[in-house]
Every structure is written in C-alpha cells, then in structure tokens.
C-alpha cells in the first residue's frame, strides 16, 4: 500500500511541477475568459452610435406619420449598459420631395469614406410607398454586416409598417393595439414534474457543456496515462520498478496519480469559471448581446444541480479508470510515443463516438438510442451525465449504469493488467492480436 502511495505521489508531484501543467491550468481559464469576454467588449463598448439618414418617399397624408414612427422607434433603441447606455442611432429625416434618387446618391457618396466629412452618416434608409404596401424597405450603409444593427432595423420597421397598414384599412384602434402585442415564447424545461427555470438554450448548453467536459477530460488524462507508460518503457526504468512493485501496483498508482492531477486541474478550472461567471455575470457571453436584442430575456447561465455534479464526477471517475486502463495497455504494447499515438486510435474513436452521439441524445434523451447507449459500457461515461443533465432519471437507473461500467471496468482492468505485465518488458515490434492473446494467457 505504501508503495502504491509512493507511485501516486511521484506521479502527482512530477506532473504538477511541469510547466505544461502550470500553463494549462492557469492560462486556459484566462484564455477562455478572454475569448468569452472579448467579443462582448467588442460588440458593446466599441459600438459607435450609427448615423442614419431616413429618406421619406412615402406618399399621401400618411407620409409623415410613417416616417415619424420609424424615427421614434430607431431613437428608442439603446446600446451599452449602465452609464455607457446611449442611443444606438442618430437619425436625420429628409423628405424626398420627388428627388429620392438624387438625394440617395448624394448621401451614398459620403458613406464609408476614409476621410469623409465630419458627421457623415453610416447608412441611408429609404421609405417608399412600397414599404407600406409591399413591405419593401431598402437600407444602404457601411454597417450592413453588423448583425445587431440589422436585427434592430428589421425589428423596428416591421411593427411601424404593420401599424400603418392597419390604419389605412381603417382598423379599430383596439384591434390595432391588440395586433401589436409582441410574441414572447417562454420555453421552460420541466423535469420530474417541476420547473427547472432553464430555457431551451441553457438546457442545451448544460448538456453540451457536460459532454464536452467528459470528452476532453477522458481523452486528455487517458492519453497522459498512456504517455506515462510508454515513457517509463522507453526510459527503461520500468524493469527496476517492476522488481519491487507488482505491475498492478504500478499501473494503479500511475492511474490514480494522473487522475488526481486531473481532479485538481478540473477543480481549478471549475472554481475559476465559477469566479469568472459570478464576476461578469451573464455578460461573459458575447452571444448574449445579440440574443438580448431579439428576445425579451437574455441568456442565463444554467443552474447546475448538485446531483448532476455528483453524477458527472461518478461517471468521470469510472470512465477515467476504464479508459486509462485501455490506454495503459496500448502504451505498454508500444516502444515509442509516436507509435502509441497511432495505436490509440480505436480507443480514442470510442470516446469520439460517445461524444458525437450526444447530439442525438439531446433531441431524444429517453429514446431507444439513449437507453441502448447507456448500457454499452464504453459510452456510458459520456452518455449518462448528458442524459442526466437533460432529464434526470431515477437512482436505480443511474446505479445500474454505474454497475455496468464497474463490471466492465473489472474485466478491462484484468485484461489490460495482463497485457501491461508482459508489454512493459517487450520491446520492438508491436504485437499482433494473436500475440496479444498469448500475452493475456501467459502465466
């Protein structure tokens, strides 16, 4: 037991001391934070107020009514937050007076020039009779690539024009008001007969996030175990160790050591992402800025229930042991790291298949595919937490799935241990399947 502890300690300390660990652990959250926050900064703080010229070419009595409605709505659109909040647009209204093309062309000439006159507009919006009758509006500007701006323009123009159409049809003012009510689809996930407070986006994000974490960690730390095994072999230190330790002790110590490093790293990542989100709140997501304009409410970070954390941890550990044993067996068959990187493809593919399947699972979390995949032990560690994130199942099903993994874990560890035992002392050519079977059966 003390010997296993010595192996675990060595594995842990030597790993934590490396530069790549320090970089990976502390730089990654910083990068993620930066990449999450930067677009937000760019999309909000850096947004200048846009100058828009509205050319009013609508005919008849209603001409002014339509134009004023549009201007009012444009001015009401805000950008930025808190003290920085300001109007998104400055608007200049020009009556066309029958010279629409001429006006338009003269304004276009001032748009988007590197040294344009001060106060040059960013775009010109042309309202014509067709805007009311057919819904055709043209906008010519330098900012047409700004998704936010275009979304707002569309959102603002639609209701104003609809209102005008209704007015022209002599609609009753009550009907008018009633028809102008905005649709707000408040999708809210229900699980186990109660509301979770998650909308579609956040429950997708949660499930996807969970699967991504499982995928990355299983792959990352599994490969680390494999590399550690190959390195011990190519350093030729393994024979000294194996004279004092059983292959099983060495293998177990190594896997636990790497696993402990993984948990520490995950812990630091988890804690820092929690800190980052609580610091910036939901603003940390740049996408929120776009979403906020279209829907009534912004994207909220999904709340993570405690049982889910438990399920994720349980299946991370089971999956890690399962895959590490496989990766260790692969490592022990190879003589160089390069060789091992090629040989691990079948194992890596299994993790990838589990990952890809989650898109089907998110759609149909309790369907046949989901149930079948839950009980194929190599997929369970990824599938189970994802299913649990979308639609928690009973404790019995969780335990059965866990038991399923534990049983195959025992079988795989036994097999991997037998291969490892012979493999670490075999150099040269990689064994064929037949030779591998011989290794397994050797005394």
């Amino acid at each position: 037991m003390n010997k296993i502890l010595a192996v675990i300690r060595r594995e842990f300390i030597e790993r934590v001391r490396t530069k790549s660990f320090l970089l990976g652990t502390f730089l990654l959250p910083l990068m993620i934070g930066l990449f999450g926050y930067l677009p937000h900064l760019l999309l909000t703080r850096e947004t200048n107020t846009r100058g828009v010229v509205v050319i009013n070419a609508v005919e008849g009595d209603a001409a002014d009514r339509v134009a004023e409605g549009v201007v009012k709505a444009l001015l009401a659109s805000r950008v930025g937050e808190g003290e920085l909040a300001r109007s998104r647009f400055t608007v200049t209204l020009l009556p066309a007076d029958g010279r629409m093309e001429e006006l338009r062309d003269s304004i276009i000439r001032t748009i988007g020039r590197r040294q344009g006159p001060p106060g040059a507009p960013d775009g010109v919006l042309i309202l014509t009779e067709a805007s009311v009758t057919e819904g055709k509006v043209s906008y010519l500007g330098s900012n047409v690539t700004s998704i936010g701006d275009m979304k707002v323009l569309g959102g603002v123009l639609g209701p104003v024009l609809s209102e005008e159409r209704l007015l022209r049809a002599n609609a009753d003012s009550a009907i008018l008001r009633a028809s102008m009510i905005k649709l707000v689809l408040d999708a809210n996930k229900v699980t186990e007969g109660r509301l979770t407070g998650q909308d579609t986006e956040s429950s997708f994000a949660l499930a996807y996030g969970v699967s991504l974490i499982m995928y990355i960690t299983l792959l990352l730390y599994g490969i680390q175990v494999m590399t550690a095994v190959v390195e011990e072999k190519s350093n030729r230190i393994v024979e000294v160790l194996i004279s004092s330790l059983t292959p099983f002790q060495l293998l177990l110590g190594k896997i636990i050591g790497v696993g402990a490093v993984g948990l520490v790293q995950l812990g630091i990542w988890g804690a820092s992402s929690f800190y980052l989100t609580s610091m910036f709140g939901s603003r940390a997501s740049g996408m929120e800025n776009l979403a906020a304009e279209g829907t009534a409410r912004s994207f909220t970070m999904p709340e993570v229930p405690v049982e889910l954390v438990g399920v994720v941890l349980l299946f991370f550990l089971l999956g890690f042991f399962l895959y590490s044993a496989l990766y260790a067996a692969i490592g022990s068959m190879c003589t160089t790291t390069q060789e091992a990187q090629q040989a691990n493809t079948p194992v890596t593919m299994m993790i990838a298949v589990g990952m890809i399947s989650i898109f089907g699972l998110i759609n149909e979390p309790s369907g046949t595919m989901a149930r079948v995949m839950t009980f194929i032990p190599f997929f369970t560690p990824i599938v189970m937490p994802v299913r649990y994130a979308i639609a928690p199942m009973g404790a019995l099903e969780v335990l059965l799935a866990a038991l399923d993994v534990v049983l195959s874990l025992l079988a795989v560890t036994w097999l991997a241990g037998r291969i490892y035992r012979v493999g670490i002392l075999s150099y040269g050519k990689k064994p064929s399947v037949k030779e591998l079977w011989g290794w397994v059966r050797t005394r």
Partner: protein
Amino acid sequence: MTAPVVFADRITKRFAGHTAVRSLSLTVPGGGLYGLLGPNGAGKTTTIRMLLNILTPDEGRVALFGSEGTGRDLSERIGYLPEERGLYPKMKVLDQLAFLGEAKGLSRWDARKRAKSWLERLGLGEWTLRKVSDLSKGMQQKVQFAGALQHEPELVILDEPFSGLDPVNSQVMRDVVVDVARSGRTVLFSTHIMEHAEKMCDGVVIIARGEKVVDGPLARIKREFGKSHVALVFSRNQVAAERVLADRNLVAHADDAGASAEVELATGAEPDSLLRALVEADVGLSRFEVVEPSLQSIFIAKVGDAAQPAMRQEA
C-alpha cells in the same frame, strides 16, 4: 546447513517459438560473489528475471532465502540492477533515488537520508538537486547503482553491471560490489567479461543456449577441469609447434595465440609426452607449466561443446 540464498529448481521459460531457459537448476550459497556467465543470448537475463519473479517460470520453482515468497514479496531484501536500466530524466537525482527506496519499502524520510549518503559516497553530492538528464552517462550509472544498493539488501542481483563503464568507473563499481560481498551479503551478477568473473567470483554458473553447462565454486570447477592444462610459450618454428598441438592423441584442445598457447591435454596423455614432442619439434620453449585453466578457456571449451548433442544430454 542454512538454506541457499538463491535456489532454482529446473526452471524453464518459453517464448513464442523458442525456449529461452531450459530446466535450469541453480544454487547460490549465502555470502560472496557469484557469477552468471554465458554468451549473448544464453538466457542470462531471462534467468535473472525468473529469479526475481519479474517473469514466472513455465516450469520449475524458485526459492529465495529458503522462503516461499516471490522475489517481489522479498524485494526489501533484494537489490536489482537490470541490464536495460534507466531513470526518469526529468526527476531530480535525490527525488529519484528516494522514490526507488520507497519502492523498496523504505519510509520516505529514511529513503531520502540514505539516498543523500549514497550520493556523497559516490561523489555526486553536488548533483543531488539537479535533474537526471543533466548528468553524464557515467554519473547516471552511479545513481542506478546506488538505487540498487541503498536499502542494504542481503542479495544483490546485477545484470551486466560493468558494461558501458569506462575503466575508472568500472573499477569504482567493482570495489563497491566487492565491499558488499565482504560484508557477508550475496552478490549474483551476470557478465560476459571473463576477467571480471575470474578476479571477483567465488562461484560461477556458465549457461549456454538456455541450459546450464557447469556450476559450482570457481576453485572446484578449475580443479575438475584443469588437471591437464598446460601453458606454453615458444620462440620459433611455429609451424612445427602447431603440428604438435594438432595431434589429438596429445592435445584435446588448444587455445592458440601464436607464440603462446593454453592447451588441454587429451584424456590419458601425460604432460611429459607433450614436453617431449615439443622439444623434439625444436620450438624454443621458454615456458612449460602445468596450470589451472583460465575461466576464459573453460568458458570457451564448455560453451563450444554445448553445441554438441552429447554435451546437451550431460547438462
């Protein structure tokens, strides 16, 4: 009588397609130096691995210290330096040795203390906090030696311990090994350098093609083998000398080195008859001495014979 430190009873190990070690029996008494000799591919490393239970014999049984436990159960009492040896290149020297000590069952504190004192002893005191990869190859070998010896094992098994060392370091290591044996502990080492074995060993076992050819105390092996060995130096008429040495009635085997030779007399032949024949051939004898055979000549004779089917049965 106390149990032998190493006892192997007809151990056999087969690998895909060939038998690496065949029905090998071995007894190493406690104390002293014991050599495991054999040409490349003879099965020395496989034998050592079976003694240590790194490999399990397909047949036969190994007992260490007269106990039922395997090499790994008893690893606290055994020091092992494999032929393919290595260290973790990125670990600090002291940490590395301490870890090896812990793997042998020493407490962490004790392991560090011993590691320090061994590094001092081998002249590596200034290098304790350096990475292994900063050390020269010779220094790394010293660290590996320390790793095998620091927990003061009763039995030290060294696989080709002096290969790849320069003469100075080789001498340092041999002195260390002899010291260990003098302190009453047992050292079993494999080598194919006969001079080392001849100078150092109390007993040897020679194996070839996976089978034992001869074993026992060195003095006895020489006595049994060498009643009729003669060392010769002659100064002229080499052709005539060679003709005499080729006479199978007189000489069974000659280790001819031009102007000198070590010859094994044919069964029934007397040294006198050889002397008479050489004088008649007028070779200008300057040395004629009935000697103990060198280990080298025993080795060549025995291992050469091992190819013969008759010898195989005998072994």
